């Protein structure tokens, strides 16, 4: 083992990361109040011209499809055209994407974020497909943040991070085991420390903690959901990253979600592929 990281070190070093977007916690606490949620989104978009441009661009693309003649120029018109769910999803992906892209160089952030977005939309699709007791936005956030500990490790020591990945791939061991050898803790634990520091809901913290070992916390619906979402993201080779591998899949997690692997699952695969490609296009 080369280094033993502690929670204090992780939190202290996290202060040099771009600030965690406060809009995420606000969205999660106002999901049941559509009007409050919409006002929050409008305020956030007004403060961020990049997000505003992306939302309006998407709304105008939809407007073009319907041959609508006037240009969409404000968030409320955009919302009426593409729906509050779509606007919320774009705000969440863009604001967390800003954190990621501001934290590490593009060669890491791009691959990392594409995978995170893929797992986020797979989690959301699974939540809808399985009727799990999980809100789709919470599933998206949990998926987007499931590997946030890896981002921290990369920023902390890029060389040691690459050594861990190389060892995991060449010796066919889990990345968590390779990280524990290299850093004394794995990315799930670091993700938990960060998520707690950012005061994220306990369900999301649990999904980060157990996404590689869901059997320990199956009663928290987000846990099996994010685990299976990541496996499917790899199985379907979403984003086409070289590291996509399936090494394990919890039967208990699948059972908990009521998943049956037969041809009726193909439409879910199709939606996951299409949504992942579509959501990742936000950053191209």
């Amino acid at each position, binding site marked *: 083992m080369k280094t033993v990281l502690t929670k204090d070190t992780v939190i202290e070093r996290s202060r040099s990361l771009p600030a965690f977007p406060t809009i995420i916690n606000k969205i999660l606490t106002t999901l049941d109040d559509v009007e409050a949620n919409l006002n929050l989104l409008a305020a956030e978009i007004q403060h961020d011209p990049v997000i505003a441009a992306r939302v309006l661009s998407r709304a105008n693309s939809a407007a073009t*499809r319907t041959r609508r003649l006037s240009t969409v120029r404000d968030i409320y018109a955009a919302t009426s055209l593409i729906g509050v769910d779509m606007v919320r999803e774009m705000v969440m992906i863009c604001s967390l994407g800003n954190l990621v892209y501001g934290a590490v160089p593009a060669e890491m952030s791009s691959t990392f974020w594409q995978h995170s977005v893929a797992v986020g939309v797979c989690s959301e699709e699974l939540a809808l497909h399985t009727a799990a007791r999980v809100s789709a936005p919470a599933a998206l956030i949990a998926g987007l943040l499931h590997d946030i500990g890896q981002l921290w490790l990369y920023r902390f020591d890029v060389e040691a991070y690459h050594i861990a990945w190389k060892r995991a791939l060449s010796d066919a061991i889990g990345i968590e085991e390779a990280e524990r050898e290299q850093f004394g803790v794995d990315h799930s634990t670091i993700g938990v420390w960060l998520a707690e520091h950012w005061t994220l809901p306990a369900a999301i913290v649990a999904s980060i903690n157990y996404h590689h070992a869901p059997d320990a916390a199956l009663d928290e619906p987000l846990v099996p959901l994010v685990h299976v979402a990541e496996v499917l993201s790899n*199985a379907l*080779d979403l984003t086409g990253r070289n590291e996509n591998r399936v090494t394990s*899949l919890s039967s208990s997690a699948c059972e908990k979600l009521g998943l049956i*692997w037969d041809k009726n699952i193909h439409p879910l695969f199709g939606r996951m592929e299409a*949504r992942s490609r579509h959501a990742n296009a936000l950053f191209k």
Partner: protein
Amino acid sequence: MKTRPRYLPLIEAEVGMLLDAPVRLVNSGFLTFSLPAGHTLTQDNLNQLVAHRAEFIYVAEPDSRPDAQVAADAAHDAHRVMEIFAGADLSDPNIMALFDQVVQYRSA
């Protein structure tokens, strides 16, 4: 002409595309809009789909690839699936079932 099925975000849908699966949009438990499989999309359909906030459609895309290219693409896809599952325990029925469905999905 041969076709192959493909999910598309609505934003990529075009007039003249052929639906490979029915569209059924449900709001608050009520069916609010539907189109049958085999239907060719019109501009009115696109307007209605946007108005009903449809997100995706399943279309039959024209497939102009020669047979040799279809076979080469299928072999490439199969190889990649094998590579992704190389470290998985395929004696586990759950993983094997997922592997089977991914292979079938890729070969559709």
